[in-house]
């Protein structure tokens, strides 16, 4: 299996050799979760090779759950718009960054998004950090590596990082950092913080 054990190519029919995708970079993914207008798209765009694109997920699986509250009139049409970007990491890897809302009601999206993900950055505005409670709780539960990044608009933190940690009731082992979503270097540092954290967890 050598080093290729964690990647796969699907769709190679019985007669199709894998040559076609052999030279294709391996896509890896980081999820950027945060409340409305917290700067997710700015964060993604600050480091992306392309202007962030928008995709819409229409969640067909929702229809499989019969909800006791019975919202029968609303078919299956729950849609979430997600902005995403792409960063080539050399020739063999390409990193995709997906922004997703941070409130608990978007949980169904996170199951999908975190599958195979390196981890998540929970982006937070200290004036409205309740918007990120859901995401923090979720990533702790499913044990996806994540860091909390406080977006310092105009360099201001309205609360200290320790205050935010207490407010979120964040485990001591989860990193919390200040960032600036507009700044490529700050974004890069935040992503590196996440990858280092994931590495620590993978080792233990």
């Amino acid at each position, binding site marked *: 299996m050598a080093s290729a054990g964690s990647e796969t190519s699907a769709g190679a029919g019985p007669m199709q050799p894998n040559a076609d995708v052999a030279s294709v970079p391996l896509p890896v*993914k980081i999820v950027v979760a945060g409340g409305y207008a917290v700067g997710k798209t700015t964060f993604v765009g600050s480091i992306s090779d392309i202007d962030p*694109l928008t995709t819409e997920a229409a969640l067909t699986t929702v229809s499989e759950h019969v909800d006791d509250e019975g919202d029968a009139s609303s078919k299956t049409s729950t849609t979430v718009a997600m902005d995403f970007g792409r960063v080539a990491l050399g020739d063999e890897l390409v990193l995709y960054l997906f922004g997703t809302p941070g409130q608990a009601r978007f949980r169904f999206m996170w199951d999908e998004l975190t599958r195979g993900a390196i981890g998540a950055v929970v982006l937070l505005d200290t004036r409205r950090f309740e918007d990120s409670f859901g995401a923090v709780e979720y990533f702790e539960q499913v044990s996806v590596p994540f860091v909390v990044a406080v977006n310092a608009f105009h360099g201001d933190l309205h609360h200290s990082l320790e205050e935010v940690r207490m407010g979120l009731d964040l485990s001591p082992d989860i990193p919390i950092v200040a960032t600036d979503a507009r700044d490529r270097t700050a974004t890069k540092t935040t992503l590196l913080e996440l990858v280092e954290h994931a590495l620590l967890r993978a080792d233990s």
Partner: protein
Amino acid sequence: MIDESPGEPVNGKGRGRLRIPPYAVTGGRTRVDVDIPFEALVRTTQRGRENTQLVAFERRDILQLAETPIAVAELSAKLRLPIGAIRVLVGDLSVEGHVQTKAMTTKADTALLERVRDGLRRL
């Protein structure tokens, strides 16, 4: 090649946000290969290139866009179709051998995380 069923409503290339409902695009099916991750890279195979003119509508768009590797999410954004619809179409094309996809299926191991870290540092 099986094209979309005749009489299906397709509003040509002038597009609003969603041209047709996803179930129409996918021929009524919604659960083929829905496990293809959003970031999976899709690439048209030799066979897909040979058959591009034999398939129609969104399927042809996908084969053309995937001449160079492109993610499922990017196909969704560029074709303005919900990602679920793209996954079904890509799933079908993949079963037919017209495209191949590449994605992580397990958690990243230490070696891969180190490659990502080193790649980020070099940015």
